[in-house]
């Protein structure tokens, strides 16, 4: 599934810094179309799975953990948004770009790990 996702990310140009700039500057429908149609297909399939009680391959009932609201959704969300527009990449595309031969993105990737670690380190002191 990961390989499949990686190929789509590259071929749809969702990993392109230019595409992300276009999206945030309202100059193209492309990224809105990708994310929007992915959500609609995802929503329909989750609904179908629940409606017909479709089980996972191993026979378990499909479980989707509930997300609880905390203020991190807001503060963290804005911080990630700033980074998204700068790097032109959310975490998925970071991996795809590294595979695609953009070696300098490895630095961005290590920074992202450092960012995650900093969050873990100072988690108790941050408002949630």
């Amino acid at each position, binding site marked *: 599934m990961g390989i499949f996702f990686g190929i789509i990310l590259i071929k749809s140009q969702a990993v392109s810094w230019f595409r992300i700039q276009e999206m945030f500057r309202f100059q193209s429908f492309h990224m809105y179309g990708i994310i929007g149609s992915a959500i609609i297909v995802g929503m329909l399939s989750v609904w179908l799975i629940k409606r017909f009680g479709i089980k996972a391959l191993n026979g378990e009932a499909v479980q989707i953990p509930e997300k609880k609201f905390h203020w991190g959704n807001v503060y963290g969300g804005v911080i990630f948004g700033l980074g998204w*527009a700068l790097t032109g990449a*959310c975490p*998925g595309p970071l991996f795809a770009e590294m595979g695609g031969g953009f070696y300098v993105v490895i630095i961005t990737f290590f920074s992202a790990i450092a960012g995650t670690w900093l969050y873990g380190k100072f988690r108790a002191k941050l408002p949630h």
Partner: protein
Amino acid sequence: MEFIQKAWPWYVSGPLIGLIVPALLLLGNKTFGVSSSLRHICAACIPSKIPFFVYEWKKESWNLFFVGGIVLGGFLATRFLSGNASVAINPKLTEVLREEGIRDFNGLLPLDIFSLSALFTLRGIIFTVFGGLLVGFGTRYAGGCTSGHSIMGLSSLQWPSLIATCCFMAGGFFMSWLILPYLLKL
């Protein structure tokens, strides 16, 4: 085959991405999400007593295989499916970016900013190093990224994900409209 070599339109790639949601649920009862892999990497590779990183990350190791797959997929698509072609962006954006100092429009990323030689400039450091920090810190603080919140969260009708997604966009707009033009000119 020609179709595969060209850039895929949104109405093909978007629904394909959407199908990953039920595929992961049905194949392994897993929820789609990429940014948690960064947490697992911290837990697995950086020994510490930080409570946030002390958990059974091995139970979540499927996620590391998943992101490993993304790297491999990225390699295959650029190597064999001519993935790194120039992006047909809106001519208006080309014009604006040219004014703001971007010269390279030949690939997925502008090499003016994202290359080894640019890395040691102030602009390069801000975009690659500082940008990455914001992405890693922000996604974990928000509890997810575009895949976990915007696609998986919204697909399962979770309202915190809607709030997070709106905040992602708000941060992005703020950066693109108000800060980025100045940073590009550095």
